[in-house]
């Protein structure tokens, strides 16, 4: 793999997991600490300012997602179906509960103070961190592939392209049931920080910007665009768009695809703001820090195709992003 030149603006984290990095998440209040979930069964906490790994704990299977509740508590879940919580101060972990199938997404909603998990058993579960204990199970049409959170709105993307919008304050019924406007399998959904809508990406190099307000005038504004495609030798290669992350301040978003590129988009003006250099392999996860100054970029081969030779290393890049790259023009 080509050695990425490191700089103050972008560097590679050390001590990264030994297998695919599935998810990277910054904490809600600081851009110093990053949680990393990996197929090597570990959940690791990194200090990105000093570039070292502070803590790690294990699951009994590959971990697919993790999140911070606050600076002290982390939650994670994966193929073993268990939701674990870890206290970063006391360095203790415990199992909160489980799903009947692997957990794919773990999120924390500060508005309602709940941990939310989405699983391949087609259920979304809510957990009260004060227990911690399970407080509800909500069935979705199909296996949960992705979840986006904005305020109290939870947008769940499932197999067969269903999208369900829930209001976490009232889980008696789903607020909206929709179908993704993309024709291919949903890969990732993230919500606009301004709560107006969400962005959904598919495996077919396409991203759609959709709005939550069901009124016709607002729905007219929705659109989709192609991205993460490369034309090589006359064949256009279309890559899954695996990751989306929003800049909280500007409502612009970054997308990462299996082509190894990260693009930053202005969804309202329909423009691409920036594209970074190509990374060594597929981008598996992206996360902006809360203040929007740092972007964590996880690169791991995702087996979109049969093995490639040589297998790229799994790495995480921390990049300081500038207004030039993220601010709408």
């Amino acid at each position, binding site marked *: 793999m080509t050695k990425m030149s490191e700089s103050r603006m972008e560097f590679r984290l050390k001590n990264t997991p030994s297998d695919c990095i599935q998810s990277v998440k910054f904490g809600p209040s600081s851009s110093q600490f990053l949680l990393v979930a990996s197929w090597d069964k570990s959940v690791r906490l990194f200090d990105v300012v000093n570039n070292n790994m502070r803590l790690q704990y294990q699951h009994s299977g590959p971990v697919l997602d993790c999140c911070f509740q606050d600076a002290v508590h982390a939650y994670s879940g994966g193929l073993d179906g*268990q939701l674990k919580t870890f206290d970063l101060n006391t360095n203790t972990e415990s199992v909160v509960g489980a799903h009947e199938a692997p957990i794919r997404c773990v999120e924390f909603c500060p508005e309602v103070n709940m941990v939310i998990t989405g699983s391949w058993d087609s259920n979304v579960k809510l957990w009260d961190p004060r227990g911690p204990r399970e407080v509800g199970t909500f069935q979705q049409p199909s296996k949960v592939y992705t979840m986006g959170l904005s305020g109290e709105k939870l947008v769940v993307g499932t197999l067969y392209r269903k999208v369900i919008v829930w209001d976490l304050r009232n889980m008696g019924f789903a607020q909206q049931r929709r179908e993704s406007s993309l024709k*291919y399998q949903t890969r990732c959904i993230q919500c606009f920080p301004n709560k107006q809508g969400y962005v959904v990406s598919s495996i077919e190099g396409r991203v759609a910007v959709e709005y939550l307000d069901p009124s016709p005038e607002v729905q007219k504004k929705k*659109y989709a665009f192609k991205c993460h*495609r490369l034309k090589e030798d006359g064949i256009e290669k279309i890559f*899954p768009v695996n990751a989306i992350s929003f800049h909280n301040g500007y409502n612009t978003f970054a997308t990462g695809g299996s082509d190894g590129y990260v693009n930053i988009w202005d969804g309202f003006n329909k423009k691409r703001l920036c594209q970074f250099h190509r990374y060594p392999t597929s981008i598996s996860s992206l996360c902006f820090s809360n203040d929007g100054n740092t972007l964590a970029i996880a690169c791991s081969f*995702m087996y979109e195709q049969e093995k490639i030779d040589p297998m790229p290393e799994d790495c995480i890049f921390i990049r300081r992003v500038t207004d030039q790259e993220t601010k709408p023009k």
Partner: protein
Amino acid sequence: MGRKKKKQTKPWCWYCNREFDDEKILIQHQKAKHFKCHICHKKLYTGPGLSIHCMQVHKETIDKVPNALPNRNNIEIEIYGMEGIPEEDLKEHERQRAGRMGPGGRRQDEEDDDDSQSSLPGQSNPPPPPVPSQGPPGPMGPMMGPNGPMMPMMGHMGPMGHMPPYMGGPGMMAGPMGHLGPMPPPGGPPVNNPPSTSQPPNKPLFPSAAQFAYKTGHTTTLCSLLHNTTTSSQIGPVKPAFPAYSQANGQSNPSNQSSTVNSGQQDKMESKKPALITTVSANSRIIHPEEDISLEEKRAGMPRYQQAPRASPQRARAPAPAPPPQRVESPPEERRMKMARYNQVSAAAAAAMAMGGMITHHHAGVRPAHPGVVVEAPPMVSTIGPTMVTTMSPAMVHTGHMAIPVSLPAIMRPNMQPIMTPQPMVSAGVPTMPTAMPPLPLGGMRPPLGLPQVCWLTISALPGPGQMAPGLAGPPMMGAPIMGGPHMIPRFR
């Protein structure tokens, strides 16, 4: 944008009949689609301009306007935006527009889904509504393939309301499918268009918002959406039109290696076979496995992750994977047991579990084999050795994955100890060779004898019982090898 006066007469492109909100966007469209030099990509202003440019600069003649309808591709006609459109064509467009709006009765701008109006004399005349609109999922049915991926792009091209049966589809008119003159018989090979799932003309990412604008006509469906109807709502184009999920009358995209199998979302959940995605088309390829499962699910199915304790219905409460029970429960998504290279489980443990399950299933007499399941490496055909290799990954044990019915057999690693093919094993514990093929209950498939027993393929995402993807021959059968305590393959000793 001065929409008021354009309410009724939105600008439309003479070359391809698409409609636009604004003349500026129309012009941008024309420059990008019809007046762009295919050699140097320079955008000219008019058709004749393009022709002159090609002649002078590239010394090449051009006789047709690119991406135009067959009857509208005359390069000599000078059209710029809405200027230069011949009278008759203007009138005809008005007529059609009136025709469309009339019966529909809806005043939505680009909504139109009337399949009642099939006044298409084989041409793509009616200005395409932006999107197939919620109207007729039915007629849309046959449209798939090219339509699917094109949909979002051709947002405002929309499938012709009239076209559905003809597979007009959104891009037909506009794109490379310009030649869609004679409608192919409905339900006929929708595929005959060079199904370019990638619309070459739409390459640029965000070139113009209009290009990608989605004027979907789902306004009405939204209302129903809000009432939480559980049927799939359509915010967005009608479902049948996608390549992956189309209900196409059994259409299989000839140009693709994988056939679109999907039959509509509603029942897919119960389906045992994973739907396949059309990943290859004429000049584009989606870099994704063919099965329509997420990359993570596919990875989870790989052998090396099998040993890990997996969630399963039974295990929901028990964090630690218990030593394998005889029977392995399998959550719907689990499959395949595989030998995991990480498997440290001793043979004993392994043996207890699974093995045998599948394979030995039918052998009543088989003694539970020793621990370890035998999985054979493909090339090895029954090296029957005293020891069975088998380490069924603990995962196997866990059951979760192993669905007996399903299961892709785990593949033994070649570096395992001698591996016996399950088959031989099966037969009454005698390491006979493949001759005696025990009936494989699972999945009902039986690998041909001659097969080098690779059998244990990990097939990801096969929820179904022993269903293997078309390409897999025997192995699925083997599937169950791992499961099943009591039926362990007698294997060695």
